[in-house]
Every structure is written in C-alpha cells, then in structure tokens.
C-alpha cells in the first residue's frame, strides 16, 4: 500500500515537470558540476587532503561558503575563522528555509532530508512556481540533482587536481548570477516585490566593500521596508504566468 502510494507520488513529480523546466534544471546542474570540479581541484592543488573537499561538499553542500572557508584556510587563516565565515555566508539559508517550508511540510524523514537540499538554486526554482505540486517537484528534483552533481564534480576535481584550468576563462562565473536572475524575474514583476528587491540589492552592493562576505546580502532584507511605503503594499498573489 505504502509502495503504491510512493509510486503514484513519483509519477506525480515527473508529470509536474515539463520538458522545458527539466532542461533548465539540467543546465543549472551542469554549470554547478563544473564549479564543483573546480572546488575539488583548487582544494587539493592548495595542499588539502582529498577528504577535505569531499566531506565539505557532502556535509556542507553550499558552494559559496565552501569556497570562502577554503580560501581562508589556503591563505593561512585559522580553520575556526573559516567555519565562521562560511556560517555567516550561509545565514541567508535561514530565511530561505522558511520560504520553502511549505514544500517540506512532509513526514519527518523527508523533512530532515529535504532541509539539506535548501540551496540558492533549489529555492529559486521553487519560488518561480505557482502550483504547490510543481513547487514541491521542482524543489526536490533540482535539489537532489544539484547534490549528486556537486559531489560528483568535487570528486572529479579531486582526481584531476592541478590539471583543471580556471573555470573563469569559460565565463562560468557569470552562470550563477544569471541563473538566479532568470529564476527571480517572475517574482519581480510585482511592483512591491521589485521595489523591495531593488532597494535591498542597492544596500547590499553599497555595503560590500565594508563588510565581510555574506553580511551585505543579509542587509538587503532592509529593502523589505520598501513594502511599508504607501501604495507599494502588495497583494499576496504575484502574477499568475510566472514560471521558468
């Protein structure tokens, strides 16, 4: 009985994702895989033992924080400082977790497992969907694929070591902001959200030269104050044709 239920829910997940969406997820996953390769390669060429990038990618599973922590250690910083910097960078995952809590309103094992898949991309993919079924499907599929590829990429990077070149030459550093931009655009069509987001982004940008990584992005939440401006108060429904 349980098994047939599970089968039905799997079929539902695949039904909910059309081909265009799957292609979009595939592209993001591919780009992240390449970044994962560079993470593994940079770690071992910097002199870290192989287990360091491997354990980080599976247990931390947050690209920005992993690179930040790695660079601090490679630059001679204390491991505790590296962990702290990574945690500050990851503080945004707290509001992200609340934003996708509805898609993880499941039994405890699924909830605990799904929490580990809360990353920028899976949250952005989920937020771009209206329908609750699609939100849930896109969160799980993108999150799980990202986890697999991120770890696979890291392992490949560890094996390839110094042979891996600089992914920046391929322009891949433009992929991550572009992906998030494309995913957040539908939400920005609502004027109230747009004003809050633009105000927040301006604050984050202005703060970047002065604050350690991660904090400027958190300061962007001050942009939510723009919602209090008379006339900007939004309705709880962004435009219905949003979606990737």
């Amino acid at each position, binding site marked *: 009985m349980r098994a047939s239920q599970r089968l039905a829910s799997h079929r539902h997940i695949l039904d909910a994702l059309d081909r265009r969406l799957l*292609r979009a997820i595939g592209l993001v996953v591919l780009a992240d895989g390449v970044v994962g390769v560079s993470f593994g390669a940079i770690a071992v060429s910097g002199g870290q033992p192989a287990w360091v990038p491997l354990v980080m990618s599976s247990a931390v599973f947050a690209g920005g924080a992993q690179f930040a922590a790695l660079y601090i250690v490679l630059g001679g910083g204390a491991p505790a400082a590296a962990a702290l910097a990574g945690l500050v960078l990851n503080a945004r995952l707290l509001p992200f977790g609340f934003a996708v809590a509805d898609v993880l309103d499941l039994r405890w094992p699924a*909830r605990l497992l799904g929490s580990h898949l809360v990353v920028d991309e899976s949250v952005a993919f989920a937020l771009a969907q209206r329908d609750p079924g699609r939100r849930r499907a896109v969160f799980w599929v993108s999150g799980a694929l990202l986890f697999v590829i991120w770890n696979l990429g890291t392992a490949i990077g560890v094996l390839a070591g110094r042979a891996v070149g600089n992914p920046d030459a391929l*322009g891949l550093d433009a992929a991550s902001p572009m992906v998030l931009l494309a995913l957040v655009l539908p*939400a920005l069509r609502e004027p109230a*959200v747009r004003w809050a987001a633009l105000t*927040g982004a301006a604050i984050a940008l202005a703060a970047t030269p002065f604050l350690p990584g991660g904090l400027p*992005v958190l300061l962007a939440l001050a942009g939510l104050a723009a919602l209090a401006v008379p006339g900007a108060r939004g309705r709880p429904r962004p435009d219905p044709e949003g979606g990737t």
Partner: protein
Amino acid sequence: MTILAILLLAAGTYALRAAGPGLAGRIELSERVRWLLSVAAAVLLCALVVTAALTSGPGFAGWARPAGVLAGGVLAVRRAPFLVSVVVAVATTATLRLLGVS
C-alpha cells in the same frame, strides 16, 4: 582545514536550513507572513544576483562578468528561454575575457 571546523560549518549550516522546515506545522503562519517570507527570499536572491555579478571579494569583479549577466538579463526580461539567456551570459563573459577584457 580540520575535521572539527568542517563539522562545525556543516552542523551550523544544516541548523540554518532546517529551522524553517522544522518549525513548519508547529507555528501557524498567516497568509501575510508567508507572503513576506517569499518576498524576503526574492530580495535575498536579487541581492545575491547583484553582488555576485558585480563584485569579487570586497572589490569590483571587472567588466566581463557583469556584461555577460546584463546581456543574458536583457534576454530574460524579454522572455527569452532560460537556456538561451544563460548560454548568452556565459558566452559573452568568455568572449570578453578572450578579447582581453577582464
């Protein structure tokens, strides 16, 4: 990197991630609060886009990356397919670097 530091980072990160999903169902959030949370996520994502496109550490990232994101972003605003806008962003940045623009 020590195993202790990695585990500290991993445990802290997991706690940040799991707080929202863990509390869901225990506390009843109003429609207004849930809407605010999704706006907060959009605000954070937007700030990530802008800082990741324009900055590298505390400084300017150079012209190639923001130019690529701008090119792809214009296409995305005009409702070009996701794939096209991302490929254009990456290709623009790579081409500019090939031409010597950092």
